[in-house]
């Protein structure tokens, strides 16, 4: 299981939790696991998210690996000027 930390604005959608555990070996599986556990997260994820894995911000690559001991943080999607 991978523990996924959420930004506090999402807590209302996940029963007040600050993190959610999902079965995942990739960033893509993290996202599908989150929606499976909490369907209300579909909207925020569709609106655009990044996933930080061990400090590296994965902006879009769903195939990036995650490990059970990885630090995984859900973030807003990154872009820039």
């Amino acid at each position, binding site marked *: 299981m991978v523990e996924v930390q959420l930004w506090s604005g999402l807590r209302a959608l996940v029963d007040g939790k600050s993190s959610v555990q999902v079965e995942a070996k990739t960033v893509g599986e993290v996202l599908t696991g989150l929606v499976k556990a909490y369907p209300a997260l579909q909207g925020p994820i569709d609106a*655009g998210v990044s996933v930080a894995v061990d*400090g590296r911000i994965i902006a879009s690559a769903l195939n990036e690996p995650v490990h059970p001991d990885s630090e995984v943080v859900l973030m807003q999607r*990154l872009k820039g000027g």
Partner: protein
Amino acid sequence: MALDGTKDTAFKYVGTTPERPDGFDKVTGRARFGADMIAPGMLFGSIVRSPHAHARIVKIDTSKAEALDGVKAVVTRADFSSALECKPGMDGEIWNTLENVMAGEKALYDGHAIAAVAATSNLIARDAAKLIEVEYEILPHVTDVDLAMADDAPVIREGVTDYSVPKGMHPNVVRCHDQGHGDVEAGFAEADLVIEDHFTTEATHQGYIEPNACVATLGADGKGEVWCSTQGHWNVQKVCAALLDLETSQLRVTASEIGGGFGGKTTVFVEPVALALSRKANKPVKMVMTRAEVFRATGPTASTSMDVKIGMKKDGTITAAKGVFRLQGGAFPGAPCEFTAMCAFAPYNLANVHQTGYDVMSNRPKQAAYRAPGSPMAAFAVESVIDELCNQLGLDPIDVRLKNASHEGTRASYGPKFERIGLVETLEEAKAHPHYSAPLAEGQGRGVSCGFWFNHGGETSVSMAMSEDGSAQIMVGTPDIGGSRASMALMAAEVLGIPYDTIRCTIADTASLGYNEISHGSRVTYASGLAVIKSANAIVKELCRRAAAKWDIDADAVIWEDGYAKPSGPNAGDFEPLHIAEITATMGATGGPINGHFEATPEGAGVSFATHIVDAEVDKETGATKVVRYTVVQDAGKAIHPTYVEGQYQGGAAQGIGWALNEEYIYGEDGRLQNAGFLDYRIPVASDLPMIDTVIVEVPNPGHPFGVRGVGETSICPPLAAIANAVSAAAGVRMRNLPMSPPRILAALDAKSG
């Protein structure tokens, strides 16, 4: 592709400063910008714009315009896709883009496009635009972010608020980002001093010198071409196709040379309108915005209203930090409230932190990205409060920042732990710089600030081809907005071992290369550069294979050194090294053309930090301010072309000086923009600026083979705060509202003297 540790001290070309490849074209006038394209039979387009900040469009009568001799087409919203759907938050961004380039039921801001006309001359087109009669029902408007959140504010559009906004807020609040960790109230209780203050910044334009311009052709067969000034032509292709119900592949888009973008050319404005006119007229259509149109209808950055509270112990330890950031991004969702919130406290290692951002709609043009969107404003508020805490506690501002600085392993205020970062190094360099210890003259003040930006990777395709004479050409898909062609050539030269000036880098059009994300997020030197290195590696591998075949040895027994294939050692055989040109001269007969390519979404961009030092003086009689000394210290990871890196640092500081001291969108009571021109919207000119000194810190990014971090955006994060801290010290009064124009300085001085 991880950092190649073996390259750290052994660069031959990377780190040198050869002449820029586009320099000759630009100084001789040979470079072709957006407005320089001419097509046979070309028409000229002009747009009718709303004079009202908020109005229902009752009727559009185009008959008189259509009857004018020389007019070939008139378009309104009915000529664009009807399949797109308005949705909450950013889900409806494609519809928002359409609504911005051509209004539907309502005019949402002064300058909003209502209709467009194409005619045989620019003059006829402009005359015809005046003949288009629009009947409006004027509605109440709001242009101020705080007023737009008030209970009695007119609603810009119902139903756009997304899941994130707390119940009870005004419908103009469309998104919210809330984040933090620890217990801020407990943290404030531990502090010896807590300061809470309110700050505002005004909307500023990216101020690119080249107005938005394009030439577009679209036939009845659904095939089209666009030539335009853009930061991302694949995005132009994708968005225009959606707005006009076209197959993406049938639209070929070429990026012209670009006279500045700074984030403002990451979207479309005139391109879909020109295509719609062309489709109707069956002729190419050229559109060039006037400067007034650029100001009224293309994206400035968001304006802000911010509250920041920070607690500090007497020894300088920050115990807690909290910020509320309200951003007005015009009549559409998209103000970068999440970035303002996430960047605000990123430089600091905080046990207790909480940040909230609100995206608020008002009757202003749709905001567009502007270098590190959202971050400079946050830094202004946060670094001003830290400065005031240092003043009141008698602490050195750099020592305090060093004491609290984020470093590798710190849990960032936005969630994850940092990889290797260079903030501490920038602070140490700033502290050691002669500027920091230089005496100040009477009436001068010194300010310091840190700044942070994420940087980005993004979808990237690169192709590279060898010529028979051993020279190389590179095709990238990221428009060159900051010298990237030079950087690409340097990185390819490093890998191939051939001189920089034997490599030509071209920005390919959308029909010639795979998809490339926009040149944004300071991503080009990082992501396109990484793809260039990988493409060059593929070519080297093939060159070695060809040499091995010639020598009849195993390919693994050949190494590549400084432009030559060589046997890897005595056991591989005794052969004279083969120069690259000897291999490419016969490539057609030894297996065919030698090319390399690479496609990926690199995900190791690496965040970056900067520390700025500013000296300013204030004339207390007139309120005039002058920046007298400026030093930028920033982590570049690895500077591929240090002169270009310095240029990015200086450019960020220069734009920051304008943002801090002069630039602002000024709206009248009628909701109309009062200063839509460079005479009244004053960007800094050379005589306003001091020499901007630069220090390039190089803490390699572990996510790039040469250690590159993006440098284009971080440089605009600290200036607002560093200048405000310097001006506040010089004036003897805390400046909380930007720009610090003479009237604002005098008002602050008057308020202080009572």
